[in-house]
């Protein structure tokens, strides 16, 4: 006769079996998390093709508001950080190479500010400022059944919630990167004139000598990638909140930490690929 007692796999297991079982459970859990993470991005990207003229108008309005919060409101902070960083770099360069010429300073500025600091610092500021806000807002929306309410009203959360924040993060990071680079160069020029005694004309020709067309490609690749990482991960972890308010700060913190790690890793990878593909021609 067949037993009616439910099968319990924990009964009479050897330590080896338990170890393999734990490995299996870990693997399944990691797979589930990775699937959910990709699901957040995939459903938002696929939502672009969802029909609905009226819905598109509503989402455009949400997008503009998100660009305002994420991009426009970060301008003063980005401006201050970039001017101070630009000035610091000139001071350090002058300390290391006292007779630094304009060509060298230009090369350092392009390599350090334009290729590395502008994308990374901008992404870090956006993740710290807006990423926390996004994750907290979405977490609170989950707790107070707002996401369920949207679903019940026939409003797709990936389209209404994730997509505008994702696009806003990409647009904001790109625009803020340009602003960061411009103000950092202005700060550098100012400090260069004051302490290194370099002429503005010489500084400008130094910059244009070091700048290549490849830098535009790298700038775009980094801007789009870093913005997408911040928007994607912060939306995902915000929506991972289940039903307790205590999960909101935990997920907000996780969203920012993972976004920062993701940004640093992506920035390194993009730089490595850049130098691997076009580095020889820049020497």
């Amino acid at each position, binding site marked *: 006769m067949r037993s009616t007692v439910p099968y319990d796999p924990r009964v009479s297991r050897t330590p080896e079996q338990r170890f393999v079982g734990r490995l299996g459970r870990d693997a399944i859990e990691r797979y589930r998390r990775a699937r959910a993470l990709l699901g957040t991005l995939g459903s938002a990207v696929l939502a672009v093709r969802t029909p*609905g*003229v*009226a*819905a598109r108008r509503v989402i455009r309005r949400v997008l503009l508001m998100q660009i305002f919060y994420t991009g426009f409101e970060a301008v003063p902070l980005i401006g201050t950080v970039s001017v101070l960083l630009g000035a610091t770099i000139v001071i350090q360069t002058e300390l290391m190479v006292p007779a630094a010429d304009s060509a060298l300073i230009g090369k350092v500025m392009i390599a350090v500010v334009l290729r590395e600091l502008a994308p990374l610092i901008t992404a870090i500021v956006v993740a710290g400022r807006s990423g926390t806000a996004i994750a907290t807002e979405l977490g609170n929306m989950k707790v*107070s059944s707002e996401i369920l*309410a949207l*679903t019940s*009203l026939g*409003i*797709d959360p990936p389209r209404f919630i994730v997509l505008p924040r994702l696009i806003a993060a990409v647009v904001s990071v790109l625009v803020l990167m340009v602003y960061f680079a411009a103000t950092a160069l202005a700060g550098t020029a100012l400090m260069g004139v004051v302490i290194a005694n370099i002429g503005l004309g010489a500084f400008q020709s130094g910059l244009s000598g070091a700048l290549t067309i490849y830098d535009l490609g790298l700038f775009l690749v980094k801007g789009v990638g870093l913005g997408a990482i911040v928007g994607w991960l912060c939306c995902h972890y915000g929506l991972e909140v289940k039903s307790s308010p205590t999960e909101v700060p935990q997920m907000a913190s996780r969203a920012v930490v993972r976004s920062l790690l993701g940004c640093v890793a992506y920035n390194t990878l993009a730089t490595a690929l850049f130098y691997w593909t076009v580095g020889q021609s820049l020497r």
Partner: protein
Amino acid sequence: MQSGLVLENASFRYGTIWVLLETSLRVSPGETLLLTGENGVGKSTLLYLLGGLLPATSGRVLLDGQAPSVTRPSELVRHGVRRGFVFQHGGLLANLTALDNVLLALRYHADVLGLDDAGVAQRGREALRDLRVAQSDFHTLPAYLSFGVRQRVALARALAIDPNFVFLDDPDQGLDEATRQIVLDLLVRLRDERRITLVLTTTDPEVIARLGVRVLELNQGRLTSMQRA
């Protein structure tokens, strides 16, 4: 296509706790159904399941022949399935005013509903007025509204979209007597009009008696029919 609400051999569990066990149910179009049961038995979860807001662990839910677990919410609306949901707590978007909460879905589906901007605004205002929400509360954020007004705004939002299904989770709970009567009168009106399939949870004998419709009791994952009041 089976119209109305159909539950086919559906089960649902939270972790190891089974809320519903292989249950089938049909709610005809325009019918009003009451779900009751002790606190914590899973009435709200069952309501979410019936409304297609939670996917069944096994089995399926159909709303006018459409499976909400595999169809995008906006696609449901395009297929003519319009749902209204009133949650026990919350549910109103915190960063939108009372009026904007009602207008959101109308704006989002304006092309499907055949409404222009003026039509959207008019229908939203009418929905709030029908629920006796004061004009002065129209432009107030939900956090600054009393609980009773918030529930009426939630009801107005659910009804503004001209739904064919409305789900209400303990709609009279925590309301003062005047607001409670407004809500009960509305429920009786909706029951009599038979335009909307109405499913609500309640533990209040007065609501059960006043509506006098089919009542199902949820107990240990099973739905049993109670005698009509």
